[in-house]
């Protein structure tokens, strides 16, 4: 098939490859485990195949775009550039892994058709965000993601789950409204806002700059909620009531990344990094991101709940992406972009492991983790890789991100960035190393809080064990093979080159 035929269908096919299975999964009878699993995996594998095609096309520089007129003047644009490919690939790969994990995790638990249906819708919304070619498309999928995530957070049905879900909804819908107003305002100023390399606003007269700053504030407030920028982060720790696969994929990858990705889009492809710098927007964003990085880490130190600690760690780490976007110059861009992927694979590893501890041993708290390394060595090994990566130990992925971010700060003359990174790294070590110490070097208790035996020769059920192992290997590979073709770093460099026209 020729590229011409494919290029206009591919983006929409990628969205539909999880949307349609999702819709059918709702209709599947609860007891029909097999059909549901087949639909799930079929969608995930198909999506991955389509994404492979997409990567190839973008690499070749093919224009890949679907345009659907939803109303005169309002067009749904799904298109693929280097940046969207990064996020699409991350989501699709991790979706497949998480689906396997979730099938194991939710075995024998209630309401699985509902869970997997919404799970698929979430991924569809996430790739929709990644592929959005203009602002209205982005807003549509951004809101859809909110809606599709709500049932997953509320899934357990306990009063805490409902409460957490409602808090999540209150934050994200309010943010969504502000984003909507910003998008509409921008639309009235300049017409359709297509994401364009270098931005679309540079031609506007200086008299409009006041409005542009106000619009940026609205957009940032909307995006900052999902990206968990302080002080809009309050929902994230509350949402940790969700089942582990939800926390892993959504709160490590899809939802928070959607916010961070949106900030990147707005800075680079709507305002243009030059204009954003002139308007003083980058400085404000950088400050906000830096504060969030430090604040999240400090808060993480104080958490005893494992998922809560990971959640605050997410608050902190996602802001690296915003920090990268706020620094002028291609090097920092590379750092921010590559962290989009690196943080995703590292954090999902950690959440998978946290889920394994909870499911296998009933361990939910850091203080209960003494000796888990001996009981669950593979899981703990994966956890260790993720945690060390987060701290920034070479050769794991996180080191690469921090290196480029620091270098970006230096090349742009913003030396304070180094200070932020150093502080964050110290704090990262402060909240991860004690866990590792407990896990490996403390003696195990006589009895675990709530131990399950799955009757396998491994430490836990296979479907739970292999996903974190695979993602941990990915973390290592992303660091070790950082300069190989098609590695996240290479791809981030491609993005930076295209954005800065190098």
């Amino acid at each position: 098939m020729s590229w011409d035929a494919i290029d206009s269908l591919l983006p929409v096919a990628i969205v539909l490859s999880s949307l349609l299975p999702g819709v059918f999964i709702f209709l599947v009878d609860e007891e029909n485990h097999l059909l549901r699993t087949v639909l799930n995996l079929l969608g995930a594998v198909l999506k991955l195949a389509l994404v492979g095609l997409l990567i190839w096309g973008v690499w070749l520089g093919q224009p890949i775009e679907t345009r659907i007129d939803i109303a005169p003047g309002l067009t749904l644009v799904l298109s693929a550039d280097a940046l969207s490919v990064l996020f699409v690939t991350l989501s699709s790969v991790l979706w497949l892994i998480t689906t396997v994990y979730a099938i194991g995790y939710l075995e024998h638990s209630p309401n699985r058709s509902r869970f997997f249906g919404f799970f698929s819708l979430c991924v569809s919304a996430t790739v929709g965000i990644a592929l959005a070619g203009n602002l209205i498309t982005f807003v549509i999928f951004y809101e859809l993601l909110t809606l599709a995530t709500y049932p997953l957070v509320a899934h357990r049905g306990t009063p805490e789950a409902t409460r957490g879900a409602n808090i999540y909804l209150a934050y994200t819908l309010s943010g969504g409204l502000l984003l909507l107003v910003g998008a509409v305002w921008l639309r009235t100023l300049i017409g359709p806002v297509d994401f364009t390399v270098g931005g679309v606003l540079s031609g506007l007269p200086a008299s409009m700059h006041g409005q542009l700053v106000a619009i940026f504030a609205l957009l940032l407030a909307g995006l900052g909620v999902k990206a968990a920028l302080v002080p809009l982060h309050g929902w994230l720790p509350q949402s940790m009531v969700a089942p582990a696969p939800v926390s892993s994929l959504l709160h490590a990858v899809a939802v928070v990344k959607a916010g961070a990705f949106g900030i990147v889009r707005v800075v680079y492809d709507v305002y243009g990094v030059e204009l954003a710098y002139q308007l003083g927007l980058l400085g404000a964003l950088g400050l906000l991101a830096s504060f969030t990085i430090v604040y999240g880490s400090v808060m993480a130190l104080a958490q005893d709940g494992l998922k809560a600690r990971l959640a605050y760690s997410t608050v902190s780490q996602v802001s690296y992406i915003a920090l990268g976007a706020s620094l002028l110059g291609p090097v920092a861009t590379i750092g921010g972009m590559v962290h989009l992927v690196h943080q995703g694979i590292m954090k999902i590893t950690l959440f998978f492991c946290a889920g394994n501890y909870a499911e296998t041993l009933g361990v939910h708290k850091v203080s209960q983790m003494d000796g888990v390394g001996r009981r669950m060595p593979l899981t703990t090994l994966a956890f260790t890789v993720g945690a060390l990566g987060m701290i920034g130990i070479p050769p794991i992925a996180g080191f690469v991100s921090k290196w480029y971010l620091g270098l970006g700060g230096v090349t742009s003359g913003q030396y304070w960035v180094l200070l932020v990174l150093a502080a964050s790294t110290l704090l990262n070590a402060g909240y991860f190393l004690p866990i590792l110490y407990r896990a490996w070097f403390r003696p195990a208790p006589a009895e675990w809080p709530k131990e399950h035996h799955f009757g396998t020769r491994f430490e836990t059920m296979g479907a739970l064990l292999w996903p974190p192992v695979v993602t941990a290997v990915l973390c290592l590979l992303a660091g070790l093979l950082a300069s190989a073709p098609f590695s996240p770093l290479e791809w981030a460099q491609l993005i930076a080159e295209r954005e800065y026209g190098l």
Partner: protein
Amino acid sequence: MPEPAMTAPLVLCIVLPLLGALFATALPGRAVAVGIVTALVTAAAAVALTLAVWEQGTLHLVLGGWEPALAIALRADGIATALVLMANLVALGISVYASGYFQDAIRIRSFWPLWLLLWAALNGLFLAGDLFNLYVMLELLGISAAALGALTGNREAIAANLRYLLVGLLGSITYLLGVAFLYTAHGSLDIGILAAAIAANEQLFAVDAAAMTLMISGLALKAALFPLHFWLPPAHANAPAPVSAALSALVVKAAFYLILRLWLDVFAPVTGMAAAMLLALLGSAAVLWGSWRALRAARLKLLAAYSTVAQIGYLFLFLPLLVATPEGPARDNLLAALLLMAVTHGFAKAGFFLAAGLVQTNAGHDRIDELGGTAQRLPATTFAIALAGSALIGLPPSGSFIGKWLLMQQAIATGQWWWVVVILAGTALAAAYVFRVLSRAFGLEPTPLRFITDPRAEVPALVLALVSVAVLGLASGPLWTLLGLSGADA
């Protein structure tokens, strides 16, 4: 004289449900069968009408072959056709639902003839080109609606619908006085002729303005514009579910349609910013008050009824923007957005009420705080509520999202940014009241084994809700074509 075949759907849309009502009256034992057949053929006629208007533009038929001034005209322009199509598809869904809803023979015999009469009145109202004929249609609509609303037979329902009937009568009499003034001043009842006469006789401005005030006040009472909405919540909340759906989705919309028709066609030279601002201010109050009361409502159907008060309010926000926007693509977009919101609300509210009715039948009550278990047992119904709810909030990709987007766009463009604040507040409140219901659907009840338990009731609710969300939001372009508007980049 136009080809009868071309204008046939115009007549059939009104006559078919009327005939159906007659046969359902005369053959009470076969009322359900007659009703379903009538619903199908009437909906088919509405589709035929839409196709005809799509291809040829506005249809116009003077009944009786007399001079237009003397006789009654039927006309189907884009606005009327869009609403007819919406109303008939929604009514078809309601009919399918109703065929299984009523169990007791006496209710069945009472429901179908009145329902088909109401349907005929709706189509007649949308398609009328004559102000006095509209009065008759309004009365037919009001009487059949009040009778249907009282069908549950309990005290609250009878009291609420008695009030509804009386208030509606006051509204239509006030409207009729306006018509009398117009006949006195301009000697015609035909909308087209009157529009031309009003534009030509500026010295009669005072009379025209008085007539407009009377007619729009009367209709605002029927459209439940704040603060004239007091009759709506009890009447809509206490009716049987299919009737609530019809009342909230269609009947109120018909009164609003008439206001719009008068505003755009008949009184175009008389309308001004002051009148538009007043109506929009009342609309804003309706949005805020209706949403607030919906949030505080103890019962699901009461919530839906207050939500209707709010949703009607949004439609009035368009008026000052229409006044401020000159002819052109921007105004086209605004008009289409107005219709899109009205149509979306029609589908969404009908779906919501039908689903709420199912919840009520299953739980034996509709107190929101105690609905958790029922909502979990009926996934498809809960899903319908969720879909319809997102359309009521205006979340993407519903039609009301597009509508609100264009509304806000034009509000910013014309500098009337304060409406944006109202829309935001209303949207946030709507999200709160919808999710107040939905959050009950996640609990520790046993897992339902099937998605759909009662297809005849759940499928119509789901389909109506789905149309409001997916179809209208993702493919609203045809609406512009049907309205004969260019739109495009504004």
